[in-house]
């Protein structure tokens, strides 16, 4: 699936490992290659036939997401899809998490941005393997991009994979990547009505992290109001309040992760 209109332009999706300067250009053209690959005659037949399809438009993405999920399950990998607006602190949250936990668990990171290797390089500086997907004009990651990134990254069994989606609270909501859980991040420097404005993202997330709480005294963000709005979209969503910069509340996030890891081990025993 091409997430851009620029299928035929350079600037499509690229997948690059942190530390490599060789960019792999991977065009994601719709269908198979040439736009004129389909039967293309110029006769004047008027024979038409209706084909009832009832086919899900996102069916291909969902099938690829199932494939990724299956792959994660077989390898005991826990995958988290981190979604938020730009600037909410996803990368800072990851940097601190990786620095604090990298001796306890094996981590991998897939970074999604329209342009630059900046985030993958920030992650690589922590010593964790990172791969950057540049979506070009695309506004979200899709399951096929993750699939191809996985083949490049080859995460080890029983590891934890963080997928940092493109900063955008709208489009990524629609695209299942095969993750075990989706984590929405909002920061207190944004409006506390974000969950009302972008309900789809909160409806499809299992956890909502409220970041930058060290700045609460200086902003007009009401934590309880934000939570109430998010619960309207998703009555079962969980919340954590923390500051990735100061470290305040990070232990609650680590406990949440450890719980997921314990659950995964439990499932592995049952299988």
């Amino acid at each position, binding site marked *: 699936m091409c997430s851009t209109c620029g299928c035929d332009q350079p600037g499509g999706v690229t997948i690059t490992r942190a530390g490599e300067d060789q960019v792999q250009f991977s065009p994601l053209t*719709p*269908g198979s290659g040439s736009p004129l690959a389909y039967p293309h005659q110029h006769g004047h037949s008027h024979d038409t036939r209706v084909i009832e399809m009832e*086919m899900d438009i996102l069916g*291909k993405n969902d099938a690829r997401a199932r494939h990724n999920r299956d792959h994660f399950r077989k390898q005991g990998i826990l995958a988290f899809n981190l979604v938020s607006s730009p600037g909410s602190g996803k990368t800072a949250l990851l940097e601190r998490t990786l620095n604090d936990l990298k001796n306890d668990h094996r981590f991998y990171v897939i970074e999604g941005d329209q342009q630059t290797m900046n985030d993958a390089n920030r992650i690589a500086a922590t010593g964790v393997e990172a791969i950057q997907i540049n979506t070009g004009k695309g506004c979200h990651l899709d399951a096929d991009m993750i699939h191809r990134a996985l083949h490049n990254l080859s995460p080890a069994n029983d590891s934890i994979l963080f997928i940092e989606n493109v900063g955008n609270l709208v489009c990524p909501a629609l695209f299942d990547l095969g993750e075990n859980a989706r984590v929405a991040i909002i920061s207190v420097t944004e409006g506390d009505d974000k969950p009302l404005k972008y309900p789809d993202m909160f409806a499809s997330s299992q956890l909502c992290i409220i970041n930058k709480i060290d700045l609460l005294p200086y902003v007009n963000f009401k934590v309880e109001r934000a939570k109430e709005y998010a619960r309207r979209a998703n009555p079962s969503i969980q919340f954590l309040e923390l500051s990735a910069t100061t470290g305040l509340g990070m232990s609650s996030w680590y406990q949440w992760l450890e719980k997921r890891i314990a659950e995964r081990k439990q499932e592995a025993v049952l299988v």
Partner: protein
Amino acid sequence: MHELSIVMSIVDLAEEQVKKHQAREVDRIELDIGTLAGIEFDALDFAWDAGVKHSVLASAERQINRIEGKMRCMKCGREFTVTEPFQPCPDCNDYLNEFIQGKELRVKSLTMKF
């Protein structure tokens, strides 16, 4: 603007079907799109022309069946129509609602030219 990738997915589906049925191109395409599917209809319009260019859908007539959002209140059981994904029950003002319809995103039918 994920509408563009939605259009590209529709083009993919149509190309596959045209190939499978050995048709020439698509004369008409019928889509079911729910008003809660996360699709901006104007953006879809905008993306359509660029997306279908040089494809089997290039000259296809497009019909979109808009499917309105419907929820059922889990407290009182009332069914009500919604225009946004999360609206409270008009009777009990509760947000705990069961989704009935409105998230459809599918190609209903294709009329192919041979």
